[in-house]
């Protein structure tokens, strides 16, 4: 790390209507360092990076790159100056090869025609230099998520980027892929590149960064050297108060009704969007008073499995039994009445209606309970909303606000409040803490434990291995649509489970 300043953002201000996304945020990144930008969801990290990469204009403030004032530049200017961003959602053409994707927009041309051989050669050289290992002639559609991400980075390097901005790059990766990414980033840094890493995972920050900037509520509240700080200090800066990060190894009370299978899935086969058997002959059961966690890299059938149990995806074959009742072909409504509660993985698409008020969202799926002879019972809805905003600490505590106006963590609290405050025996919790700040994670975990301790059966699916390990009484691993392993809590650890998640091991079939 040199002392040259690569990036300097000063007093950045950005508003989206009533939302003040950046309030005078500042960021200094030195050339040749890996700099972590951390903060809870809605803290304004992504906005700051989008401003830096030229995707959005600032309302006020200045951006300097390499000592030059570039305020108001465009993405094209940014790329020309060697600043590029890897987005959470990949921007690749699946029907083109790796090499074609990398050179897209800057294709090598010989005699007026696309020179495929040269493109592949160039990309191969680039792969070797950077340590990013992807076969240039493969179709992007056939790549794993980790490989696709490498292609995104290659695209930037091909365009001569020396400053890489990565937005939550590990959200979709398995632990070995994460380790691989760190290797690549370190190698790039050692080659003189500057990396800004957006994340809210503290272990990542500690593992790979040199310096850390913490954002909270649109402001940059702290800058620290990784060597001199601790996860507790970072978490405190992120949330603005002390946070208990320790993994509590609690057990359910002995009185919990153990043993009765509240939810049972037998030989379930479910069709996916592109795959015939996204869920492939899966059988398991969840007992009352137990949390069964399903670990696995995203896209291995977890989504389809939960949607099938929830009743929003058709089952090809197999049976789903809820409290002794076969619900395989029942409607969502019937399942709900039979005691099924569901925290869906995508709150923006399924879990909430963003333009509905908090109060309206708090009855979604329960609207029939708040209706008298066809009319919405507005008093009951309001009362329920007031109760929930207090009980589940939804902020701001104004149920008439549209859900869109709340931060990610508070939006998730709406979903949690709704699904936990109703009568249920089985809870499906899909990615319950995705994109949620540290404080809210703590709260949501406590709620899941509380449900378990109250004798509910909880089926937890999470891409965060740590979360699954922390909460679950038993842990199943899903890979390629199948349950490839089942562990008791005492047997499970990241080291044991990791190889099953990547498909390197597949025995112990439950």
């Amino acid at each position: 790390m040199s002392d040259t300043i690569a990036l300097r953002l000063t007093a950045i201000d950005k508003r989206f209507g009533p939302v003040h996304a950046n309030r005078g945020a500042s960021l200094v990144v030195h050339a040749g360092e890996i700099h972590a930008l951390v903060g809870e969801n809605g803290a304004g990290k992504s906005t700051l990076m989008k401003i830096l990469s030229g995707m959005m204009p600032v309302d006020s403030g200045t951006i300097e790159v390499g000592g030059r004032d570039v305020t108001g530049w465009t993405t094209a200017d940014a790329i020309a100056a060697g600043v590029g961003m890897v987005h959470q959602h990949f921007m690749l053409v699946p029907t083109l090869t790796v090499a074609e994707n990398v050179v897209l927009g800057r294709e090598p041309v010989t005699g007026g025609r696309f020179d495929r051989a040269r493109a592949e050669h160039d990309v191969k050289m680039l792969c070797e230099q950077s340590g990013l290992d992807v076969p240039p002639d493969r179709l992007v559609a056939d790549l794993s998520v980790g490989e696709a991400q490498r292609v995104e980075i290659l695209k930037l390097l091909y365009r001569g980027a020396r400053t890489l901005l990565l937005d939550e790059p590990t959200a979709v990766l398995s632990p070995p892929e994460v380790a691989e990414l760190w290797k690549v980033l370190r190698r790039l840094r050692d080659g003189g590149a500057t990396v800004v890493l957006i994340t809210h995972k503290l272990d990542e920050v500690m593992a790979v960064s040199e310096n850390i900037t913490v954002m909270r509520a649109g402001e940059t509240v702290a800058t620290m050297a990784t060597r001199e700080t601790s996860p507790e200090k970072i978490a405190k800066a992120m949330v603005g108060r002390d946070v208990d990060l320790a993994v509590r190894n609690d057990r359910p009370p002995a009185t919990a009704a153990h043993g009765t299978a509240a939810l049972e899935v037998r030989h379930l086969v479910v069709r996916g969007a592109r795959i015939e058997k996204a869920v492939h002959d899966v059988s398991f059961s969840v007992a009352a008073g137990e949390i069964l966690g399903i670990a696995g890299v995203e896209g291995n059938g977890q989504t389809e499995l939960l949607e099938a149990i929830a009743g929003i995806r058709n089952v090809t074959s197999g049976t789903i039994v809820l409290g002794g009742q076969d619900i395989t072909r029942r409607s969502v409504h019937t399942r709900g009445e039979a005691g099924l509660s569901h925290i869906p993985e995508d709150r923006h698409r399924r879990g909430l209606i963003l333009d509905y008020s908090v109060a309206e969202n708090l009855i979604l799926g329960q609207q029939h309970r708040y209706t008298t002879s066809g009319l919405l019972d507005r008093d009951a809805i309001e009362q329920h909303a007031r109760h929930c905003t207090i009980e589940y600490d939804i902020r701001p505590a104004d149920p008439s606000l549209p859900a869109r106006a709340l931060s990610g963590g508070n939006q998730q609290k709406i979903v949690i409040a709704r699904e936990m405050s109703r009568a249920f025996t089985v809870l499906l919790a899909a990615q319950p803490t995705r994109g949620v700040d540290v404080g809210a994670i703590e709260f949501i975990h406590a709620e899941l434990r509380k449900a378990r301790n109250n004798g509910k059966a909880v089926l937890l699916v999470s891409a965060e291995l740590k979360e699954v390990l922390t909460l679950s009484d038993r842990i199943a691993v899903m890979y390629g649509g199948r349950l490839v392993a089942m562990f008791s809590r005492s047997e499970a650890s990241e080291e044991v489970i990791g190889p099953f998640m990547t498909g390197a091991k597949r025995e112990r079939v439950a």
Partner: protein
Amino acid sequence: MTTNARTRTLIEESVLPPLVALVVALVAGDLLIMAYGQSPGVVWRTLLEGTWGNSYGFGQVLYKATTLTCTGLAVAVGLRAGLFNIGAEGQLAAGGFGAGLAGLLLPGGTPAVIAIPVCVFAAVAAGGAVGSVPGILRARFGAHEVIVTIMLNFIVLALLNYLVSAKLHVPETLHTPEIHAGAVPRLSAAFAAFHGSAANWTIVIVLLAAALLWWFLFRTRAGYELRAVGLQPAAAEYAGIRGGRVWFNALVTSGALAGLGGINFVLGYKHYYEDGFTGGAGFLGIAVALIGRNNPVGVVFAALFFATLSQGGLAINAMVPKQIVEVLQGIVIIAVAAAVPEVRRLLRQSVSKRKPA
């Protein structure tokens, strides 16, 4: 977010785009009028005087706005459910025909308290029946309602044309004989000032329908579910709402509302069904819904606005071609379509510029 900020957002989102569109249209209109060598001020004044300035013109505006409110509500309820009903023209015609047919079938001398509801019901049922076709096709087979409703317009209009010209017409005309019962009295019967204008008591029925639709959308469980399906179908599915049923109901309701508009001409004005009476009011309903932001209250105001332009076009015809108002209508529609996100962005930028860094 404070109440203040929320009010501001509401204004930015719902009120400002139509107003900006109006200003843009006025400026464009100024240029067009000047191109004809006329003074914009004089032309606009004539337009206003010919519409809101005298009771006959105002009556005509009310008459035209009544039909447009119906077709606007029809399109709006579809859009609230996430469906684009282009078929209001055919549904409006079908409603008019239904009302006319009922009025013909009823014996002369049937008391109005029976005849009018029967005829109104016939109009609503006819429009709803036409709407049920795209409803079933969408709910059952996933057929896109835009294609179905466009095609259905041709079928319905051609069918009605055949029925009227081959079976029911008065010789030498393209309209049916006069209805025996079910006529809705004109406003001029109660308020002499409206004398000569086509405005009739249908407007009260239509305003009631608008109020009822508002109440349905925002106060009933079915309305909650309908809007949920329109806003986020995946979330509605998650909530156990059956999208197919909502789509079907929305398209039937949409057709019924458009059909209701048919009584304005048939029961309230001419007392017979005439081929081609719709004159594009069904299609203009799309613009009315758009400007009215799919809100029943907004639709009523948007209908008044378009009715004013349409009637005003006749008033200024001596100075400039009346087609100028059609150009204006087009500009308003384009401007609103463009203004929605644009206005807000511009506003934000100007606000932040005024603020010291």
